[in-house]
């Protein structure tokens, strides 16, 4: 978690080429960049749909489920990836099952989700307390760490990411339809419920991927913020999807570079960069609206709308 505590802490020089060569000479940094690429792309796409479907709360709960998954895998001694994916996907199925039953009672449903979330976190805390071993504390699991990502982990991430993207590519169009207008989609024979269940499972897999980079609590930095930023900037689905992926990637890689030189946790930098982009996008939109409202004036013919 802390690079700065090393005696030979890397120093940023303005010779970018040698900086990069030095950074890439560490296998863990290369792996971190690879993992960041996979995670940012998957989260950009899945997160875009999540923001469109307004399922941020469900997404948050799923991401939280990654914490006990990781803690239990440390406690019981099985693979960390298994813990992440297993718990996130199981939580997705639970939420999907509860949603199906509690149709039309949004308030109660969110109470269920909130309770599940708190309980799951409490379980994670219990596992950590019971472990008392080499794990210095829950902070690394909660706030992310990019040290010690192995090549095997990158392969697992890439494989899972490819599956998620493939499934999403198949169901992308009907899902878009069902997300924007569920009633008309149902009328047209689109299996809305099935789509929403599958989407929740995909969301679980994506959050499981992201939590391995940013930590369980900061998954939103890669899931929500890039997508929200992209949807601020453009209304066209394809373009904003692409933008969301690129923004997520930029935030992730910039965060990695910054975290390499600074002793602060990776999650802080990734959220910081992503949120700066979000605020900028808001300002751009406000500026655009201010310009667009002016075309009554004689000179503003080619308004920037």
């Amino acid at each position, binding site marked *: 978690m802390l690079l700065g505590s090393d005696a030979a802490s890397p120093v940023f020089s303005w010779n970018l080429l040698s900086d990069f060569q030095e950074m890439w000479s560490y296998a863990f940094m290369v792996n971190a960049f690879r993992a960041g690429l996979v995670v940012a792309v998957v989260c950009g796409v899945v997160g875009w749909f999540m923001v469109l479907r307004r399922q941020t709360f469900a997404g948050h709960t799923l991401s939280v489920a990654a914490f006990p998954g990781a803690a239990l895998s440390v406690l019981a001694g099985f693979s960390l990836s298994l813990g992440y994916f297993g718990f996130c996907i199981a939580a997705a199925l639970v939420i999907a099952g509860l949603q199906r039953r509690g149709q039309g009672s949004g308030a109660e449903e969110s109470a269920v989700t909130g309770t599940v979330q708190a309980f799951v976190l409490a379980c994670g805390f219990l596992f950590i307390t019971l472990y008392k071993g080499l794990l210095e504390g829950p902070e690394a699991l909660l706030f992310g760490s990019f040290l010690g990502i192995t090549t095997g982990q990158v392969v697992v991430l890439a494989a899972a990411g490819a599956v998620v993207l493939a499934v999403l590519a198949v169901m992308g169009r009907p899902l878009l339809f069902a997300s924007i207008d569920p009633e008309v989609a149902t009328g047209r024979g689109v299996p809305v419920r099935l789509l929403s269940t599958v989407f929740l499972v995909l969301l679980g897999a994506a959050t499981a991927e992201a939590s391995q980079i940013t930590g369980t609590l900061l998954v939103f930095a890669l899931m929500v913020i890039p997508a929200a930023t992209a949807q601020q900037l453009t209304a066209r689905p394809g373009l904003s999807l692409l933008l969301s992926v690129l923004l997520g990637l930029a935030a992730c890689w910039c965060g990695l570079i910054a975290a390499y030189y600074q002793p602060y946790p990776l999650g802080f930098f*990734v959220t910081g960069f992503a949120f700066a982009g979000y605020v900028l996008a808001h300002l751009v939109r406000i500026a655009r609206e201010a310009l667009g409202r002016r075309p009554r004036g004689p000179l503003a013919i080619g308004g920037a709308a």
Partner: protein
Amino acid sequence: MSTVLSQEFFQHALLAGTFIALACGLVGYFLVLRAQIFTGDALSHVAFTGAMAALAGGYDLRLGLFAATIGVGLLLGGLGRKGRPDDVVIGSVFAWILGLGAFFLTVYTTSRSAAQGGAGTTVLFGSIFGLNGSQTMLAVVIAAAICLVLLLVARPLLFATLDEAVAAARGVPVRLLGFGYLALVGACAGEATQAVGSLLLLGLLAAPAGAAIRLTDRPFRALALSAGLAVAEMWGGLLLSAEVPKLPPSFAIMATASAVYAATFLVRPARRAVPAAA
């Protein structure tokens, strides 16, 4: 068992826990009714950042806690329409704030001695058994104030929650109530962080209220039931943790609360045909 009960730390925990649970039960009922659980979630994360910022800056933890939660509660109210913020805005803001919290945590743990390394865990998961006498008194006073204010505004707030348009037409200051309520939620989040930690307080807000809403359709009875359940769950959790020292108190409280909520699904599996809003 009886030896633990007579210990001072346990009595402090019981006293503070009772009042904190009372406040959480009352505030949580409206949180569920207004479908603002996600706001509570965001505020709970803000509590972490506030506490860590105060620690990193060398102030009292609680100062940062309350300043951050109440401040962000009002901010979220201002961002959204009619004091009800949008999920995506909340998500983006709280991801960033949580990132800041991680930053302050690192600043704090690297600048202070290694003995302070557990501070992050304490704030995240609470340490109700670690409260001393003056902390307990302050927690009790603040929780009592929250309960009092909430009970004073309970009627208009309920009206504004169930039918905003009619309430506004009748001259109820809907927007002001929305703001005030978010400030109350913030204060409550700050309180509960001391008991069960910022990550788990959502359960204390949501579980008793959700159970109460399942058990009765009458608003004021549900409000009382929610507060009563919260207190009972707090006691149950504390006793359980005293009985089985391996279980941390935060986990025991959450487990009790979740179990009670799960039990309400068994008690009344099918909803009545008439919706609760009647």
